[in-house]
């Protein structure tokens, strides 16, 4: 009996008070890593590019490194080609993925299942293998040339080592997640709402424009934001498939950091990519957080 009474003072299942420190303790290491390796580098990068020692050694606020970036024609060209590539990829992704997603949403059977499996497939192909396959197919004397030659047609102008190389590779790489996100958005459009619209006499494109599109606008924006974040600072595919000059921001930053050995220049470029992507980044994160909150 005395035993019972003593143990009876132990806290119970849902008594949060006593457990608080334990919970904090358990999440401490990952949270610390996030703070140290994500939050701090960002703050540090912004700080180091804005508070720098000038010629006299006095540390003060300066935008010199940014002025240097934007007054350098080569840097500006690189930024321009990055923006062009990102824009092209976003456009192609939308044009390719939206029809496929619409088709998959409104059909059932083995053929759509096959189409879906194919569309998701690039997710399981690491970009390094993709780059290799690209060169073997679209590179000089690649499979495309072989096939064209066998039917007596001239060779293609290979996109390998041109700005189109990264565009093709990045679109290929981003198709699966774009389609998955769009499909998840299309799942929220009920068959009844479409049948009701057809019932009152809406034609196919009217149904798409007035019923489906408003419902999936958010998903389209999420998909594009996610792709843009990935593409804007992509490294592997532009490095392997793109031209040496102008180069995209990813390879440019890498070269500035490792080969030119100019960390300040590299983090200036990094902060500039942050600036160009911040809207998409915040929008994407907000959507994920809201989704998770449900």
């Amino acid at each position, binding site marked *: *009996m005395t035993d*019972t*009474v003593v*143990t*009876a*003072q*132990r806290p*119970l*299942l*849902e*008594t949060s008070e006593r457990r608080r420190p334990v919970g904090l303790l358990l999440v401490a290491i990952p949270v610390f890593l996030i703070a140290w390796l994500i939050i701090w580098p960002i703050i540090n990068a912004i700080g180091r590019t804005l508070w720098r020692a000038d010629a006299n050694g006095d540390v003060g606020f300066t935008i010199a490194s940014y002025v240097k970036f934007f007054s350098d024609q080569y840097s500006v060209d690189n930024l321009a080609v990055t923006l062009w590539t990102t824009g092209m990829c976003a456009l192609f992704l939308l044009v390719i993925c939206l029809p496929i997603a619409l088709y998959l949403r409104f059909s059932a059977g083995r053929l759509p299942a096959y189409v879906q499996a194919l569309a998701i497939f690039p997710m399981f192909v690491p970009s390094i293998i993709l780059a290799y396959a690209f060169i073997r197919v679209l590179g000089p004397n690649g499979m495309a040339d072989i096939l064209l030659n066998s039917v007596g047609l001239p060779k293609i102008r290979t996109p390998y080592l041109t700005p189109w190389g990264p565009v093709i590779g990045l679109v290929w790489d981003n198709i699966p997640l774009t389609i998955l996100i769009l499909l998840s958005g299309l799942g929220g459009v009920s068959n009844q709402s479409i049948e009701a619209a057809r019932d009152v006499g809406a034609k196919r494109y009217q149904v798409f424009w007035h019923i489906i599109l408003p419902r999936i606008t958010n998903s389209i924006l999420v998909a594009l934001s996610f792709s843009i974040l990935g593409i804007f600072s992509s490294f592997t595919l532009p490095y392997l498939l793109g031209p040496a000059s102008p180069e995209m921001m990813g390879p440019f930053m890498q070269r500035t950091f490792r080969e030119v050995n100019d960390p300040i220049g590299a983090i200036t470029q990094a902060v500039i990519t942050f600036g160009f992507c911040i809207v998409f980044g915040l929008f994407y994160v907000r959507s994920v957080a809201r989704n998770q909150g449900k």
Partner: protein
Amino acid sequence: MSVLKITDVSKVFAGNTVAVDKFSLDVADGELVCLLGPSGSGKSTLLRMVGGFERPSGGVITIDGEEITHLSPEKRPTGMVFQSHALWTHMNVFKNLAFGLKLRRLPADEIKRKVEAVLELVGLAGYGNRLTHQLSGGQQQRVALARSLVLEPKILLLDEPFASLDQHLRERLREEVRDIQQRLKITTLFVTHGQDEALSMADRIVVMRDGRTEQIDRPDVVYRDPKTPFVAGFIGTMNLIEGTVSNGVFIRDSLRVPLPIADGPAILAIRPESLDLVAAEPGMARVHRVTDYGTHGLVDLDLPDGERIKSMVSHPDLFKAGQGVDLNPTAIAAFRDKMQVYRSQT
């Protein structure tokens, strides 16, 4: 020989919602007590406090005189059957039942013997190797019951165990559980919001509302002699008519019923089966609709001011919509200030 004693137990949730308010109840050895009430009445919270899954804000719970109020669930001699049965899907039936016994470090052959005995008891002999998803809903609930029984708890707790089953199965399991409970003479606390379940199974019913007891009585008493208008309305069908008493007569519109209580407002309670009808023009009420159920009929009546009341009649073909009737109650009760103030002798 186990007695559950709940004394002045309260539960206040965050935000100062009072779920259970100074609740007291004694459950005698081998008794099956039903906690009956609408959702939000605190019945489940009370059961979970007995099981140890909620911490009482105040009060004392004892089993056989030993206090268990703040004991964690694994240290209590209680066995709980959950509404969703909560079987462990990664274990087969045998392992589900053996888990608690293994924790008690029983030898393997004894575990086997006990598990087989209890499976036999719930009518699932030979099902030990089945996976839980290979069982029907009723079988899953039997396994959940067996999982509690195999540990021979002093108190069995059932939290709406049949809520997820269909009507037919529910009635069968209800009888089975009652049989098993009586055979083992296990003290049982049973939570339900279904009055049929409470009326058919319980030795005593506790009608709860807003965390408080409205009435504790045998099922037939709760039905015949509700102590509050809430109990009267919650159990079975009851005509509750608000009116005033003047000189020993209850008056509502054209309705007049002798009621020997002091003058003032009152609620008159009449079961449909205790309200006889006599054809009369214009009569106290008018027939709105007659429904023939074969064995009996139900007549919906309107008082002139629109109040709708029901009467159960044995010959529904005698009445037609639109005709006038006089009302002749054979048994009545009356409430004032939420308490029973009069009940006619039958």
